[in-house]
Protein backbone atom coordinates (compact mmCIF):
# COMPACT_ATOMS: atom_id res chain seq x y z
CA UNK A 1 0.00 0.00 0.00
CA UNK A 2 2.75 2.38 0.94
CA UNK A 3 4.59 1.41 -2.18
CA UNK A 4 1.59 2.20 -4.28
CA UNK A 5 1.44 5.66 -2.80
CA UNK A 6 5.14 6.06 -3.51
CA UNK A 7 4.46 5.06 -7.09
CA UNK A 8 1.76 7.67 -7.50
CA UNK A 9 3.88 10.38 -5.91
CA UNK A 10 6.75 9.42 -8.20
CA UNK A 11 4.47 9.60 -11.20
CA UNK A 12 3.30 13.06 -10.26
CA UNK A 13 6.85 14.19 -9.62
CA UNK A 14 8.05 12.97 -13.00
CA UNK A 15 5.21 14.65 -14.80
CA UNK A 16 5.89 17.86 -12.95
CA UNK A 17 9.62 17.78 -13.55
CA UNK A 18 9.09 16.96 -17.22
CA UNK A 19 6.68 19.84 -17.72
CA UNK A 20 9.18 22.08 -15.98
CA UNK A 21 12.07 20.90 -18.07
CA UNK A 22 10.20 20.98 -21.35
CA UNK A 23 8.15 24.14 -21.08
CA UNK A 24 8.80 26.25 -18.03
CA UNK A 25 12.58 26.49 -18.03
CA UNK A 26 14.05 28.80 -20.69
CA UNK A 27 16.32 27.39 -23.39
CA UNK A 28 20.08 27.71 -23.14
CA UNK A 29 21.84 30.57 -24.88
CA UNK A 30 24.29 28.29 -26.67
CA UNK A 31 22.62 24.92 -26.89
CA UNK A 32 19.05 26.06 -27.34
CA UNK A 33 16.31 23.59 -26.59
CA UNK A 34 18.75 20.69 -26.65
CA UNK A 35 19.74 21.76 -23.16
CA UNK A 36 16.44 20.35 -21.91
CA UNK A 37 17.65 16.86 -22.70
CA UNK A 38 20.36 17.28 -20.11
CA UNK A 39 17.85 17.06 -17.30
CA UNK A 40 16.72 13.54 -18.17
CA UNK A 41 20.16 12.49 -19.40
CA UNK A 42 22.04 13.46 -16.26
CA UNK A 43 19.31 12.17 -13.96
CA UNK A 44 19.31 8.82 -15.78
CA UNK A 45 23.08 8.57 -15.59
CA UNK A 46 23.08 9.41 -11.90
CA UNK A 47 20.64 6.60 -11.15
CA UNK A 48 22.39 4.19 -13.47
CA UNK A 49 25.60 4.56 -11.48
CA UNK A 50 23.75 4.48 -8.17
CA UNK A 51 22.05 1.23 -9.18
CA UNK A 52 25.39 -0.24 -10.03
CA UNK A 53 26.69 0.67 -6.63
CA UNK A 54 23.69 -0.97 -5.01
CA UNK A 55 24.24 -4.15 -7.02
CA UNK A 56 27.90 -4.30 -6.06
CA UNK A 57 27.25 -3.66 -2.37
CA UNK A 58 24.37 -6.13 -2.27
CA UNK A 59 26.67 -8.68 -3.86
CA UNK A 60 29.19 -8.19 -1.10
CA UNK A 61 26.34 -8.50 1.36
CA UNK A 62 25.44 -11.86 -0.12
CA UNK A 63 29.00 -13.17 -0.10
CA UNK A 64 29.34 -12.25 3.53
CA UNK A 65 25.95 -13.44 4.77
CA UNK A 66 24.74 -15.96 2.16
CA UNK A 67 21.32 -14.38 2.56
CA UNK A 68 19.55 -14.53 -0.78
CA UNK A 69 17.62 -11.36 -0.01
CA UNK A 70 20.82 -9.49 -0.79
CA UNK A 71 20.89 -11.23 -4.13
CA UNK A 72 17.34 -10.07 -4.81
CA UNK A 73 18.45 -6.51 -4.18
CA UNK A 74 21.42 -7.01 -6.47
CA UNK A 75 19.19 -8.31 -9.24
CA UNK A 76 16.80 -5.40 -8.86
CA UNK A 77 19.67 -2.96 -9.01
CA UNK A 78 21.04 -4.54 -12.16
CA UNK A 79 17.77 -4.63 -14.04
CA UNK A 80 16.65 -1.16 -13.08
CA UNK A 81 20.19 0.00 -13.65
CA UNK A 82 20.48 -1.38 -17.16
CA UNK A 83 17.31 0.48 -18.04
CA UNK A 84 18.59 3.81 -16.73
CA UNK A 85 21.93 3.19 -18.40
CA UNK A 86 20.22 2.71 -21.73
CA UNK A 87 18.26 5.91 -21.11
CA UNK A 88 21.43 7.79 -20.27
CA UNK A 89 23.07 6.69 -23.49
CA UNK A 90 19.97 7.46 -25.50
CA UNK A 91 19.73 10.90 -23.94
CA UNK A 92 23.40 11.49 -24.54
CA UNK A 93 23.01 10.62 -28.20
CA UNK A 94 19.90 12.76 -28.64
CA UNK A 95 21.78 15.65 -27.07
CA UNK A 96 24.96 15.01 -28.99
CA UNK A 97 23.43 15.11 -32.44
CA UNK A 98 22.13 18.70 -32.31
CA UNK A 99 24.98 20.03 -30.19
CA UNK A 100 28.05 18.21 -31.49
CA UNK A 101 26.66 17.27 -34.86
CA UNK A 102 27.33 13.61 -34.17
CA UNK A 103 25.56 10.93 -32.17
CA UNK A 104 28.76 9.64 -30.63
CA UNK A 105 32.02 11.12 -29.35
CA UNK A 106 34.85 8.89 -28.20
CA UNK A 107 36.41 11.70 -26.27
CA UNK A 108 33.49 12.26 -23.97
CA UNK A 109 34.39 10.19 -20.92
CA UNK A 110 30.83 10.04 -19.68
CA UNK A 111 29.42 8.60 -22.87
CA UNK A 112 32.10 5.96 -23.32
CA UNK A 113 32.10 4.99 -19.66
CA UNK A 114 28.33 4.67 -19.71
CA UNK A 115 28.48 2.51 -22.82
CA UNK A 116 30.87 0.21 -21.03
CA UNK A 117 28.55 0.26 -18.03
CA UNK A 118 25.79 -1.03 -20.29
CA UNK A 119 28.02 -3.83 -21.55
CA UNK A 120 28.90 -4.79 -17.98
CA UNK A 121 25.27 -4.82 -16.82
CA UNK A 122 24.10 -6.85 -19.79
CA UNK A 123 26.85 -9.37 -19.12
CA UNK A 124 25.79 -9.53 -15.50
CA UNK A 125 22.17 -10.21 -16.38
CA UNK A 126 23.12 -12.83 -18.96
CA UNK A 127 25.32 -14.56 -16.42
CA UNK A 128 22.37 -14.75 -14.05
CA UNK A 129 20.11 -16.10 -16.73
CA UNK A 130 22.55 -18.90 -17.58
CA UNK A 131 22.91 -20.13 -14.01
CA UNK A 132 20.05 -22.08 -12.52
CA UNK A 133 21.18 -22.92 -9.01
CA UNK A 134 20.21 -19.97 -6.79
CA UNK A 135 23.24 -19.91 -4.52
CA UNK A 136 25.68 -20.45 -7.36
CA UNK A 137 23.95 -17.74 -9.34
CA UNK A 138 24.12 -15.35 -6.43
CA UNK A 139 27.82 -16.02 -5.82
CA UNK A 140 28.82 -15.65 -9.45
CA UNK A 141 26.74 -12.53 -9.85
CA UNK A 142 28.24 -11.02 -6.72
CA UNK A 143 31.79 -11.54 -7.99
CA UNK A 144 31.00 -10.07 -11.39
CA UNK A 145 29.12 -7.14 -9.88
CA UNK A 146 32.02 -6.36 -7.61
CA UNK A 147 34.73 -6.59 -10.25
CA UNK A 148 32.68 -4.50 -12.65
CA UNK A 149 32.05 -1.83 -10.01
CA UNK A 150 35.75 -1.64 -9.26
CA UNK A 151 36.47 -1.34 -12.96
CA UNK A 152 34.20 1.63 -13.64
CA UNK A 153 36.31 4.33 -11.95
CA UNK A 154 39.39 2.96 -13.71
CA UNK A 155 37.59 3.25 -17.04
CA UNK A 156 36.49 6.78 -16.26
CA UNK A 157 39.96 8.02 -15.43
CA UNK A 158 41.62 6.26 -18.30
CA UNK A 159 39.21 7.79 -20.80
CA UNK A 160 39.81 11.25 -19.35
CA UNK A 161 43.55 10.77 -19.75
CA UNK A 162 42.93 9.36 -23.19
CA UNK A 163 41.36 12.62 -24.23
CA UNK A 164 44.57 14.22 -23.02
CA UNK A 165 45.67 16.99 -25.30
CA UNK A 166 42.66 16.78 -27.55
CA UNK A 167 40.39 19.73 -27.15
CA UNK A 168 37.18 18.73 -25.50
CA UNK A 169 33.99 19.56 -27.34
CA UNK A 170 33.92 23.34 -27.58
CA UNK A 171 30.29 24.01 -26.92
CA UNK A 172 28.25 21.95 -24.65
CA UNK A 173 30.26 20.09 -22.18
CA UNK A 174 27.54 18.19 -20.35
CA UNK A 175 29.20 18.90 -17.03
CA UNK A 176 28.52 22.59 -17.48
CA UNK A 177 25.25 22.03 -15.68
CA UNK A 178 27.05 21.04 -12.53
CA UNK A 179 29.32 24.03 -12.59
CA UNK A 180 28.89 26.58 -9.82
CA UNK A 181 28.33 29.23 -12.44
CA UNK A 182 25.38 27.49 -14.09
CA UNK A 183 22.14 29.46 -14.12
CA UNK A 184 20.02 28.73 -11.09
CA UNK A 185 16.92 27.83 -13.07
CA UNK A 186 18.80 25.11 -14.91
CA UNK A 187 20.23 23.68 -11.73
CA UNK A 188 16.79 23.66 -10.14
CA UNK A 189 15.33 21.91 -13.18
CA UNK A 190 18.02 19.27 -12.98
CA UNK A 191 17.51 18.76 -9.26
CA UNK A 192 13.78 18.47 -9.75
CA UNK A 193 14.23 15.81 -12.39
CA UNK A 194 16.81 14.06 -10.26
CA UNK A 195 14.44 14.01 -7.31
CA UNK A 196 11.58 12.71 -9.41
CA UNK A 197 13.72 10.01 -10.98
CA UNK A 198 15.01 8.97 -7.57
CA UNK A 199 11.43 8.46 -6.40
CA UNK A 200 10.74 6.41 -9.51
CA UNK A 201 13.91 4.42 -8.96
CA UNK A 202 12.98 3.64 -5.37
CA UNK A 203 9.54 2.48 -6.44
CA UNK A 204 10.92 0.29 -9.21
CA UNK A 205 13.57 -1.19 -6.94
CA UNK A 206 11.01 -2.15 -4.33
CA UNK A 207 8.72 -3.73 -6.89
CA UNK A 208 11.54 -5.60 -8.62
CA UNK A 209 12.78 -6.88 -5.27
CA UNK A 210 9.31 -8.11 -4.34
CA UNK A 211 8.97 -9.76 -7.71
CA UNK A 212 12.31 -11.52 -7.38
CA UNK A 213 11.42 -12.91 -3.98
CA UNK A 214 8.05 -14.17 -5.19
CA UNK A 215 9.39 -15.70 -8.35
CA UNK A 216 12.12 -17.46 -6.43
CA UNK A 217 9.60 -18.93 -4.05
CA UNK A 218 7.70 -20.22 -7.05
CA UNK A 219 10.95 -21.59 -8.51
CA UNK A 220 11.74 -23.38 -5.26
CA UNK A 221 8.26 -24.86 -5.11
CA UNK A 222 8.51 -26.06 -8.70
CA UNK A 223 11.89 -27.58 -8.03
CA UNK A 224 10.64 -29.40 -4.95
CA UNK A 225 7.69 -30.72 -6.94
CA UNK A 226 9.98 -32.00 -9.66
CA UNK A 227 12.22 -33.75 -7.13
CA UNK A 228 9.37 -35.45 -5.30
CA UNK A 229 7.71 -36.44 -8.57
CA UNK A 230 10.94 -38.05 -9.72
CA UNK A 231 11.25 -39.87 -6.41
CA UNK A 232 7.71 -41.14 -6.62
CA UNK A 233 8.29 -42.39 -10.15
CA UNK A 234 11.44 -44.17 -9.08
CA UNK A 235 9.86 -45.89 -6.10
CA UNK A 236 6.71 -46.76 -8.07
CA UNK A 237 8.66 -48.77 -10.62
CA UNK A 238 10.82 -50.56 -8.05
CA UNK A 239 8.29 -53.11 -6.75
CA UNK A 240 7.37 -53.92 -10.36
CA UNK A 241 10.96 -54.69 -11.18
CA UNK A 242 11.32 -56.85 -8.12
CA UNK A 243 8.24 -58.86 -9.06
CA UNK A 244 9.46 -59.71 -12.55
CA UNK A 245 11.09 -63.14 -12.78
CA UNK A 246 14.80 -63.15 -13.43
CA UNK A 247 15.83 -64.10 -16.87
CA UNK A 248 17.22 -67.61 -16.78
CA UNK A 249 20.91 -67.50 -17.53
CA UNK A 250 21.89 -69.28 -20.65
Amino acid at each position, binding site marked *: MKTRILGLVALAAVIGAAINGLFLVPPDLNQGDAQRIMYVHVASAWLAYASFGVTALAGIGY*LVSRDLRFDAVALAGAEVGVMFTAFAIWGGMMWGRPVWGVYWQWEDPRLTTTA*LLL*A*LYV*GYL*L*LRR*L*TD*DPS*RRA*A*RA*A*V*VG*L*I*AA*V*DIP*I*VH*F*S*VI*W*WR*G*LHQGPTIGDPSKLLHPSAPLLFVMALLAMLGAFTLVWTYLMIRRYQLARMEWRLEDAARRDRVSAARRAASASAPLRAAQPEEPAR
Partner: protein
Amino acid sequence: MNDLRRGLSVALAIARKDGISELRGRQAAGSTIFFAALVLLLFGFALGPDSRRLAEAAPGLLWLAIVFGGLLTVARLHQLEADDGALEQLALYPVDRRAIYAGKALAGAAAMMVLGGLLLPVVAILYAIPIGAAWLPLLVAVALGAIGFAAVGTAYAGLTVRMRAREVMLPLLLLPIVAPLLLAAVKATTAALGGDPLGELGSWLQLLLAFDVIMLIVGAGTYGFLLEE
Protein backbone atom coordinates in the same frame (compact mmCIF):
# COMPACT_ATOMS: atom_id res chain seq x y z
CA MET B 1 54.23 -15.97 8.61
CA ASN B 2 53.95 -19.69 8.29
CA ASP B 3 50.66 -19.33 6.49
CA LEU B 4 52.24 -16.93 4.05
CA ARG B 5 55.07 -19.31 3.30
CA ARG B 6 52.66 -22.21 2.85
CA GLY B 7 50.46 -20.12 0.63
CA LEU B 8 53.42 -19.10 -1.48
CA SER B 9 54.60 -22.65 -1.92
CA VAL B 10 51.11 -23.76 -2.92
CA ALA B 11 50.88 -20.94 -5.42
CA LEU B 12 54.25 -21.76 -6.91
CA ALA B 13 53.42 -25.43 -7.06
CA ILE B 14 50.23 -24.73 -8.97
CA ALA B 15 51.97 -22.31 -11.28
CA ARG B 16 54.70 -24.85 -11.93
CA LYS B 17 52.17 -27.56 -12.66
CA ASP B 18 50.34 -25.36 -15.12
CA GLY B 19 53.59 -24.21 -16.64
CA ILE B 20 54.74 -27.76 -17.22
CA SER B 21 51.40 -28.66 -18.81
CA GLU B 22 51.75 -25.67 -21.10
CA LEU B 23 55.27 -26.60 -22.12
CA ARG B 24 54.42 -30.24 -22.73
CA GLY B 25 52.25 -28.97 -25.53
CA ARG B 26 49.25 -31.04 -24.62
CA GLN B 27 47.65 -27.79 -23.64
CA ALA B 28 47.81 -26.33 -27.09
CA ALA B 29 49.79 -23.34 -25.92
CA GLY B 30 51.63 -23.26 -29.20
CA SER B 31 48.38 -23.22 -31.12
CA THR B 32 47.31 -20.14 -29.21
CA ILE B 33 50.48 -18.30 -30.11
CA PHE B 34 50.05 -19.29 -33.71
CA PHE B 35 46.43 -18.16 -33.60
CA ALA B 36 47.43 -14.73 -32.28
CA ALA B 37 50.01 -14.36 -35.04
CA LEU B 38 47.36 -15.36 -37.53
CA VAL B 39 45.10 -12.64 -36.17
CA LEU B 40 47.86 -10.13 -36.80
CA LEU B 41 48.18 -11.41 -40.33
CA LEU B 42 44.46 -11.13 -40.88
CA PHE B 43 44.45 -7.58 -39.62
CA GLY B 44 46.91 -6.85 -42.39
CA PHE B 45 44.38 -8.04 -44.93
CA ALA B 46 41.58 -6.16 -43.24
CA LEU B 47 43.33 -2.82 -42.89
CA GLY B 48 46.06 -2.88 -45.49
CA PRO B 49 47.74 -2.51 -47.85
CA ASP B 50 48.60 1.08 -46.92
CA SER B 51 51.65 0.51 -44.76
CA ARG B 52 51.38 3.88 -43.06
CA ARG B 53 47.88 3.08 -41.84
CA LEU B 54 49.03 -0.30 -40.59
CA ALA B 55 51.99 1.23 -38.81
CA GLU B 56 49.72 3.67 -37.04
CA ALA B 57 47.31 0.93 -36.07
CA ALA B 58 50.04 -1.49 -35.05
CA PRO B 59 49.95 -0.94 -31.27
CA GLY B 60 46.18 -1.45 -31.18
CA LEU B 61 46.37 -4.52 -33.38
CA LEU B 62 49.16 -6.01 -31.29
CA TRP B 63 47.14 -5.68 -28.13
CA LEU B 64 43.98 -7.02 -29.70
CA ALA B 65 45.93 -10.10 -30.72
CA ILE B 66 47.30 -10.42 -27.18
CA VAL B 67 43.79 -10.08 -25.76
CA PHE B 68 42.36 -12.75 -28.07
CA GLY B 69 45.24 -15.06 -27.26
CA GLY B 70 44.78 -14.25 -23.60
CA LEU B 71 41.14 -15.27 -23.67
CA LEU B 72 42.13 -18.69 -24.96
CA THR B 73 44.97 -18.94 -22.47
CA VAL B 74 43.04 -18.25 -19.26
CA ALA B 75 40.20 -20.46 -20.40
CA ARG B 76 42.61 -23.26 -21.16
CA LEU B 77 44.27 -23.07 -17.75
CA HIS B 78 40.98 -23.92 -16.10
CA GLN B 79 39.57 -26.20 -18.73
CA LEU B 80 41.84 -29.18 -18.27
CA GLU B 81 41.17 -29.42 -14.56
CA ALA B 82 37.47 -28.95 -15.07
CA ASP B 83 37.40 -31.77 -17.60
CA ASP B 84 39.21 -34.12 -15.26
CA GLY B 85 37.07 -33.22 -12.31
CA ALA B 86 40.16 -31.89 -10.60
CA LEU B 87 38.58 -28.57 -9.75
CA GLU B 88 36.34 -30.19 -7.17
CA GLN B 89 39.42 -31.84 -5.68
CA LEU B 90 41.18 -28.52 -5.59
CA ALA B 91 38.26 -26.96 -3.82
CA LEU B 92 38.42 -29.62 -1.12
CA TYR B 93 42.04 -28.95 -0.21
CA PRO B 94 42.37 -27.12 3.10
CA VAL B 95 44.52 -24.45 1.54
CA ASP B 96 44.05 -20.71 1.23
CA ARG B 97 41.99 -19.98 -1.87
CA ARG B 98 44.13 -16.96 -2.55
CA ALA B 99 47.13 -19.21 -3.01
CA ILE B 100 45.30 -21.25 -5.64
CA TYR B 101 44.28 -18.04 -7.37
CA ALA B 102 47.81 -16.68 -7.20
CA GLY B 103 49.24 -19.82 -8.75
CA LYS B 104 46.79 -19.85 -11.62
CA ALA B 105 47.12 -16.13 -12.23
CA LEU B 106 50.89 -16.44 -12.21
CA ALA B 107 50.75 -19.19 -14.79
CA GLY B 108 48.37 -17.17 -16.92
CA ALA B 109 50.51 -14.05 -16.69
CA ALA B 110 53.63 -15.96 -17.61
CA ALA B 111 51.94 -17.57 -20.59
CA MET B 112 50.70 -14.21 -21.80
CA MET B 113 54.09 -12.60 -21.35
CA VAL B 114 55.54 -15.26 -23.59
CA LEU B 115 52.74 -14.68 -26.05
CA GLY B 116 53.26 -10.92 -26.06
CA GLY B 117 57.00 -11.20 -26.29
CA LEU B 118 56.75 -13.50 -29.29
CA LEU B 119 54.24 -11.25 -31.03
CA LEU B 120 56.52 -8.21 -30.84
CA PRO B 121 58.83 -9.36 -33.63
CA VAL B 122 55.79 -10.46 -35.65
CA VAL B 123 54.34 -6.97 -35.41
CA ALA B 124 57.72 -5.45 -36.16
CA ILE B 125 57.95 -7.41 -39.37
CA LEU B 126 54.36 -7.36 -40.59
CA TYR B 127 53.75 -3.68 -39.94
CA ALA B 128 57.27 -2.42 -40.50
CA ILE B 129 57.68 -1.02 -37.00
CA PRO B 130 61.28 -0.40 -35.96
CA ILE B 131 61.50 -1.43 -32.32
CA GLY B 132 65.10 -0.56 -31.61
CA ALA B 133 65.63 1.11 -28.28
CA ALA B 134 61.99 0.80 -27.32
CA TRP B 135 62.27 -2.90 -26.53
CA LEU B 136 62.58 -2.34 -22.79
CA PRO B 137 59.50 -0.17 -22.21
CA LEU B 138 57.65 -2.42 -24.63
CA LEU B 139 58.47 -5.49 -22.60
CA VAL B 140 57.43 -3.68 -19.43
CA ALA B 141 54.11 -2.77 -21.04
CA VAL B 142 53.61 -6.37 -22.16
CA ALA B 143 54.42 -7.63 -18.69
CA LEU B 144 52.05 -5.24 -16.94
CA GLY B 145 49.31 -5.90 -19.46
CA ALA B 146 49.75 -9.64 -19.12
CA ILE B 147 49.55 -9.48 -15.33
CA GLY B 148 46.40 -7.35 -15.42
CA PHE B 149 44.65 -9.53 -17.95
CA ALA B 150 45.59 -12.70 -16.12
CA ALA B 151 44.44 -11.19 -12.82
CA VAL B 152 40.85 -10.69 -13.96
CA GLY B 153 40.94 -13.43 -16.55
CA THR B 154 41.80 -16.11 -14.02
CA ALA B 155 38.88 -15.13 -11.83
CA TYR B 156 36.42 -15.01 -14.72
CA ALA B 157 37.76 -18.21 -16.22
CA GLY B 158 37.18 -19.94 -12.91
CA LEU B 159 33.69 -18.48 -12.89
CA THR B 160 32.69 -19.52 -16.39
CA VAL B 161 34.49 -22.84 -16.74
CA ARG B 162 31.48 -24.87 -15.69
CA MET B 163 28.83 -22.72 -17.25
CA ARG B 164 26.58 -23.23 -20.18
CA ALA B 165 27.75 -21.18 -23.15
CA ARG B 166 31.10 -20.64 -21.46
CA GLU B 167 32.91 -19.99 -24.76
CA VAL B 168 30.93 -16.82 -25.23
CA MET B 169 30.44 -15.89 -21.59
CA LEU B 170 34.13 -15.55 -20.83
CA PRO B 171 34.84 -12.96 -23.54
CA LEU B 172 31.49 -11.29 -22.96
CA LEU B 173 32.26 -10.72 -19.29
CA LEU B 174 35.98 -10.13 -19.58
CA LEU B 175 36.33 -7.79 -22.54
CA PRO B 176 34.48 -4.79 -21.06
CA ILE B 177 36.53 -5.14 -17.89
CA VAL B 178 39.85 -5.01 -19.72
CA ALA B 179 38.88 -2.00 -21.84
CA PRO B 180 40.97 0.38 -19.70
CA LEU B 181 43.84 -2.10 -19.74
CA LEU B 182 43.69 -2.22 -23.51
CA LEU B 183 43.51 1.54 -23.75
CA ALA B 184 46.46 2.10 -21.45
CA ALA B 185 48.59 -0.65 -22.96
CA VAL B 186 48.08 0.66 -26.48
CA LYS B 187 48.85 4.21 -25.39
CA ALA B 188 51.99 3.04 -23.61
CA THR B 189 53.07 1.01 -26.63
CA THR B 190 52.47 3.93 -28.98
CA ALA B 191 54.40 6.25 -26.71
CA ALA B 192 57.29 3.82 -26.40
CA LEU B 193 57.54 3.25 -30.14
CA GLY B 194 57.45 6.94 -30.86
CA GLY B 195 60.17 7.82 -28.38
CA ASP B 196 57.63 9.17 -25.89
CA PRO B 197 57.43 12.73 -27.25
CA LEU B 198 54.81 13.82 -24.72
CA GLY B 199 56.34 12.13 -21.72
CA GLU B 200 53.19 10.18 -21.10
CA LEU B 201 54.70 6.69 -21.08
CA GLY B 202 55.18 6.76 -17.32
CA SER B 203 51.58 7.72 -16.65
CA TRP B 204 50.21 4.94 -18.79
CA LEU B 205 52.47 2.36 -17.21
CA GLN B 206 51.33 3.56 -13.81
CA LEU B 207 47.72 3.16 -14.85
CA LEU B 208 48.50 -0.39 -15.93
CA LEU B 209 50.18 -1.06 -12.63
CA ALA B 210 47.20 0.33 -10.71
CA PHE B 211 44.87 -1.88 -12.73
CA ASP B 212 47.05 -4.89 -11.99
CA VAL B 213 47.18 -4.28 -8.26
CA ILE B 214 43.46 -3.60 -7.94
CA MET B 215 42.43 -6.63 -9.96
CA LEU B 216 44.86 -8.93 -8.19
CA ILE B 217 43.42 -7.90 -4.86
CA VAL B 218 39.81 -8.27 -5.97
CA GLY B 219 40.53 -11.49 -7.83
CA ALA B 220 42.24 -13.05 -4.85
CA GLY B 221 39.43 -11.97 -2.57
CA THR B 222 36.64 -13.41 -4.68
CA TYR B 223 38.18 -16.54 -6.20
CA GLY B 224 37.36 -18.62 -3.16
CA PHE B 225 33.66 -17.99 -3.57
CA LEU B 226 33.85 -19.27 -7.13
CA LEU B 227 35.56 -22.52 -6.21
CA GLU B 228 33.05 -23.37 -3.55
CA GLU B 229 30.29 -24.19 -5.93
